[in-house]
């Protein structure tokens, strides 16, 4: 049976899957899957050369980290905005970042957001893709070039609707010459949850927040699938009211949310 796409599942669906994964995936079958991914990374690194992995702190990235470290790949990169991250996430990063992580800032901050208001709470795939391109992909490109890498290892999965390569391949080289390899490409949501359970991997606070498993890791203005702007500010307030107070300097919607909560 094929895995349902992330976009068709609710946070509650994911939570149910996560909490009951040991009933569906045995430790031995998880370990076999994990070993195959480790072998795949080792083989690809032998074939292509210098490699590093991309780490967002999210659930797939934590599993990817475990796979890569088991395969002897320790260098990694986190792309983040200069001023639009959830403080609670950054505090979690401080305590959980891989030793050899390089943090690369992209220039988006509150002033930038005020000048690009169409980027706030994306309600279509094109805007969401613009966030990924201007933060994660930009940082990945800088890192790839700075260290003259041959391959970047990603936690992308087909079940998440991610592109991993053409014709069944799990790697590709983009038009800018960056080769991306996705050893978890065929992992299901259950496989990822099993890895988190059996390896006891810590997860960032996103997954305890509203719609956490659907939204995953993201800078706060890139929060997806909000009904409208007011819904976005309301969820952000529930997560961290300080962000709304800070944003109210530029955004009347944030100011309205503060007035509503007063």
């Amino acid at each position, binding site marked *: 049976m094929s895995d349902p796409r992330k976009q068709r599942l609710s946070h509650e669906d994911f939570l149910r899957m996560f909490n009951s994964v040991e009933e569906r995936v045995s430790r031995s079958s998880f370990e076999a899957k994990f070993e195959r991914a480790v072998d795949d990374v080792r083989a690809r690194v032998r074939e292509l050369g210098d490699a590093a992995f991309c780490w967002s702190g999210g659930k797939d990235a934590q599993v990817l980290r475990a796979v890569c470290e088991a395969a002897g790949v320790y260098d990694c990169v986190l792309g983040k905005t200069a001023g639009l991250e959830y403080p609670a996430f950054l505090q979690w990063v*401080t305590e959980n970042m891989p030793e050899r992580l390089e943090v690369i800032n992209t220039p988006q901050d509150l002033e930038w957001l005020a000048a690009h208001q169409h980027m706030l709470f994306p309600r279509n795939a094109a805007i969401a893709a613009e966030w990924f391109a201007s933060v994660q992909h930009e940082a990945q490109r800088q890192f790839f070039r700075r260290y003259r890498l041959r391959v970047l290892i990603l936690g992308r999965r087909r079940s998440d609707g991610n592109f991993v390569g053409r014709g069944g391949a799990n790697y590709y080289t983009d038009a800018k010459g960056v080769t991306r390899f996705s050893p978890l490409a065929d992992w299901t949501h259950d496989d990822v949850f099993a890895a988190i359970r059996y390896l006891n991997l810590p997860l960032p606070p996103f997954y305890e927040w509203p719609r956490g498993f659907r939204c995953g890791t993201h800078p706060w203005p890139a929060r997806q699938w909000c009904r409208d702007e007011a819904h976005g500010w309301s969820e952000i307030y529930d997560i961290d009211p300080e962000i709304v107070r800070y944003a109210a300097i530029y955004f009347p919607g944030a100011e309205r949310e503060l007035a509503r909560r007063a």
Partner: protein
Amino acid sequence: MCGLFGYYGPGADPSRLKEIARLAARRGPEGLGLAFQNKSSRPSFWIEFGSGATARHINLIDRCADAQVVIGHCRLASSNVFSQGLLQPVTHGGVVLAHNGNVPGYREDPDWQWGDDAPDSRLLALWVGEQQQRLNVSLAEAWAAVSQRLNGRPYAVLIASQGEFLAAARGLPLWTDGNGYYGSVRWADDLEAVGH
């Protein structure tokens, strides 16, 4: 947060320290801070801060030539705020401290007195100084008591106080080469992990 580097010994080699700091700066790209003590400053410390992209400030380390104590810090801004007041090392009384980690609930702590423009790590420097003064204990003993207040959270710290130096870590990386150099990221193969 989040990259540390340092030295404690007869005289620091800035080129070695820069090599260690460049690796630490990968973890903390948003500002560099440096406290160092040499013959002309003793018993005080020279303090230097460079806010903004950490890599641009690495050459501040040239000033540490022959320093006997160096405590360096590369910041990851967990608050989205970039004022110089949030850079480390922090000082309180005679305590100089750089910290990778979080102090849980610091804003609600009755000892917190600095508003928004100070890192949570200032509390650690305050508590270390208080422990040393009240109980007249070594820096290691003072830190052992203070680290209890982190409620099991991971940390890495470099601390200098009253002529003593301490490197300690629990759950976060901190390495030493046995020749007085310390760093968050391994810069050679034959290093030892610092424990608590």
